[in-house]
């Protein structure tokens, strides 16, 4: 389990990163925290000609509030997110979801940008990004562009990032008033990738569901919005009964549900409903 040979670059500016990506013509890989890429290298499942290590890009390590959003540099570690008072107070869902990710030793090095770009369908961050309508700031040869979370995750381990682009920032809107949130997941062991997870964001006004966002992860190739659930909630009086009925629709519209050694597709579709119900109930309590 030793990595194959590759060149190593440690640029310090975005311009250098983009130039290196172009120079290696799609054969290079970006190394962020390395917590997903390094196992693949050790197993020789990934075979880049070069690694472009963002570890020296200290200016991509920040968390700050800007224009109603939390802006997080792509090289910010999960540890920093977990411990950020700003995140805890202004976007507690992001904080809570971080504590579900692996273990502290991994969160110390794993980065926000790395998780997003890796786009593992069972990972928490992509689902949270979709649920919160996060915005992805991308640098490339033509400068900077931004992509909505709903357009960022294309399929299993694939994002809207082009071969010569690099993710530089994730902008997560702060949680609006009277809005509750929840993240629920079932994993074989604490810290494992979720078999299924559900994120719910519920806006209540006068006891009625004013807004609803439900995103499931671990079920399909990307985080999936449960739009039928959302529709069943809007305008209705929040109650356990409503959440139960709405959650029954969680498996509707799920495409190509994952089936693996830990969970059959049938089980996953069932868990989607259970976790949606639990997430809605908890979100309503917090709203």
């Amino acid at each position, binding site marked *: 389990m030793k990595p194959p*040979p590759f060149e190593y670059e440690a640029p310090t500016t975005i311009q250098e990163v983009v130039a290196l990506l172009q120079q290696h013509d799609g054969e290079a890989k970006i190394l962020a925290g390395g917590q997903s890429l390094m196992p693949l290298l050790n*197993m020789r499942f990934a075979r880049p000609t070069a690694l472009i290590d963002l570890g020296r890009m200290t200016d991509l390590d920040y968390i700050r509030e800007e224009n109603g959003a939390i802006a997080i540099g792509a090289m910010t570690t999960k540890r920093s997110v977990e411990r950020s008072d700003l995140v805890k107070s202004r976007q507690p869902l992001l904080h809570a979801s971080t504590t579900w990710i692996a273990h502290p030793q991994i969160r110390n090095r794993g980065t926000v940008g790395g998780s997003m770009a890796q786009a593992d369908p069972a990972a928490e961050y992509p689902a949270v990004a979709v649920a919160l309508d996060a915005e992805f700031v991308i640098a490339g040869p033509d400068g900077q562009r931004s992509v909505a979370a709903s357009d960022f995750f294309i399929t299993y381990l694939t994002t809207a990032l082009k071969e010569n682009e690099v993710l530089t920032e994730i902008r997560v809107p702060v949680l609006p008033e009277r809005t509750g949130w929840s993240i629920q997941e079932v994993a*074989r*062991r604490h*810290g*494992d990738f979720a078999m299924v997870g559900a994120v719910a964001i519920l806006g209540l006004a006068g006891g009625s569901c004013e807004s609803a966002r439900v995103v499931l992860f671990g079920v399909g190739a990307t985080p999936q919005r449960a739009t039928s659930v959302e529709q069943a909630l809007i305008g209705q009086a929040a109650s356990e009964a409503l959440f139960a009925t709405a959650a029954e629709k969680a498996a509707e519209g799920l495409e190509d549900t994952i089936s693996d050694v830990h969970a059959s597709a049938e*089980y996953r579709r*069932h868990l989607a409903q259970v976790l949606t119900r639990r997430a809605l109930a908890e979100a309503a309590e917090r709203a």
Partner: protein
Amino acid sequence: MAVKIPNSIDELPTSSPRFIGHRVKRVEDTGLVTGRTEFIDNVSMTGMLHCAILRSPIAHAKIEKIDVSAALDLPGVVAVVTGEDAAKWSHPAASSPDGWGTYCLPADKVRFVGEPVAAVAATSRYIAEDALELIEIEYEPLDVVSDPVAAMEDGSPLVIEERGSNVMLQRVFNWGDTDAAFAAADHVFSEKFRWNRLGANPIETYGCISEWDPTELGITVRGAFQSPSHMALGRAMTFGLPSNKVRMIAHPHGGSFGGKGGVRGTDVSLLLSRKTGGRPIKWIEDRMEYLAAGGSQAWDRRYEFSIAVTNDGIVTGLKVKLVDDIGANGEGFGAISAAKPLAAFTGPYTIGAAQYDLSLVATNKAPASPYRGMGPPPHNFALEQMMDIAARSLGIDTAEFRRRNFIPKDAFPYIIPSGNEYDSGDYEAVLDKVLALSEYEKLREEQKLAREQGRLVGIGVASAIEPGVFDWNAYAVVGVQGTGVPEGATVSIDILGKVMVRVGFALEGQGQYTLVTQLVADYFGLEMEDVSVTMLDTASAPPAFGPGGSRLGVAITGAVLGACDRIRVKMCKVVAGLMQTEPENIQLMDGVFGIPGVSEAQMPMAQVAGTMLGASHLLPPDVDPRPEATHVWTAAGRTPVDEEGRTKSYLTAAHAVHIVLLEIDPDTGMVEIQKYVLVDDCGTRLNPATVEGQTQGSVAQGIGAALLEEYVYDEDGQLLTSTYMDYLLPTIHDVPALVMGEVVTPSPFSPLGAKGCGEGAIHTTPAAVMCAINDALVPLGTRANEVPAAPNRLWKLIHTARENTSSD
């Protein structure tokens, strides 16, 4: 004069033992916590090369062609070996039932995913792995058989064509008149069970550094050997060498649990050493190699159990049918793990007649290996489920049902139908204690309330025997050639009275060096610091087998006390000579030799040793002047296998009852263990802290077995759980706090009355957890008969049961 080995701590030559029986700190630990202990991968040798092994990606295929030329051209690569070299220089593995062994590198075909096909020696592991990618192999895929039931059918693809069948062994053992017991029974209960593959997974994988000596025509291997002498015998057979030309140097290793494996890699690296003219070849098995093809996989079983029961709740007969999927061959001693249940076939119960219909079957999967417990844990799991089924059907509490069937304490020594003898026990005392500790009645009341709320709360009560101190005769039953299992120790005292003990096994984790130190310190009235323990290689160590089959604690106690006694006898002669009396007048007590009651006739042990080594002219003429002795201990009274497979195999029979309270989340199938209480009786506890540690660790592995761990193959024989992302070891979140109690019924047969306890709780834990799960499922009228009880399986059972109820 016969060597005197005390059967009780009271018989030690000390007025009050200061170490034996006490929770002493381990002598092994300072090196381990500082990272200084010399594990094999820490070792480098001059001229050493690194080995990487190319493994089959296909479960069953003919090898049409292997081209290694590009690999040989890579700078840094020194040699490549293939099946051609193995056929030229080695023999098929001798560890299989006769005729079921294969070469370490096959020349003709591959039989499982992960089977080695070629190997490279290079100047670094990185380069060796680069070279593997340059080896070109043409395979012609063959039909795969991954299901043992299908493998038994006519027309199935054959794993080893020459055998003409995939059935390695099929035999029905009959002990007593089982048919009569079933015919006379008021009730017969039958159930099928499935135990999926799991395995040892020590955190250190196997590793070795192998050297072929082209001048002496011998081999030297340094490595992480659980049993160096046994590895040595295997290598001698594989390489056609006299056993005295094989030297194994064991290093401390990071756990084994029976599943250290490493045989193929050792042989492959030896071929590379031979091909490179004798250079040392280091092979460190990586984790993916371990998971796919190391000593990692055990117990892939399909069971049918039946029990015959009277109206009073007495079990009178047991029938077991087992199809054991051994994988591609029996090289990893997987075959013998189906034989070990004979040592405790009927558990702690008085069941008078039993039948074992056993089939060992080859499939295109990794060869099965040993694992802690060596076979009985799945058997116990199934037997304990049957006890519960019967109890519930007869309306008898599950704890009470066991009590009625326990072998009574005055019946020992007790010979069970399958031939083994249990030394001693007080099973009711163990049960009573665990019931009290767990507040069993209260638990049942809490369960009743929970059930009224619709919650799936279950209580498991499981009881099992841990056979201890194995003897190879147990395994002759399945045609695996055996050897004896001696354990020797050399105790050597220097001129200042300090002691060195030389043993033939390496540090593995069970604290055996500490035990040796405790024994000698108490025997001669020394401090622990005055005793040190050294591991010798197979060329110089006293005869030794090492840990395995819950034997080493007892066996090394016998060896050390035997050696101490030999020295005592010698020293008594010396002292008698100096004091001009007869040796029988001299007594050793608290480190002093002398005539009891005569205060001026006393000599501290160090003075005796000093006299022997410094003034041997003062000794009586017939006394050997070395204050040193070796004793080789074997268990007395073992018997050969009779025509029905019966033998007195294991010397001791430890016993335990575990009680588990758990809750299943019906919506997710996730299990939460809320309380875990156990009481065990493993005879005299030589170091209670170590015994506790073995128990706690074994409970954790048992929980892994019951809930998490499983090797999954698809029908093409591809392993789907090839990393630790998918093969799930228990973490600190998965193992509950334990409440533990003890009953001590010393063994009448063993040194100091201790019983084997290293394998421990895994005999009972999977059974107890599964009993609790099935207890929780009672209101739904469904059962979990498959291990592990993974959440998707439990959810499916619950979901189906609810659908059936609602459609009724």
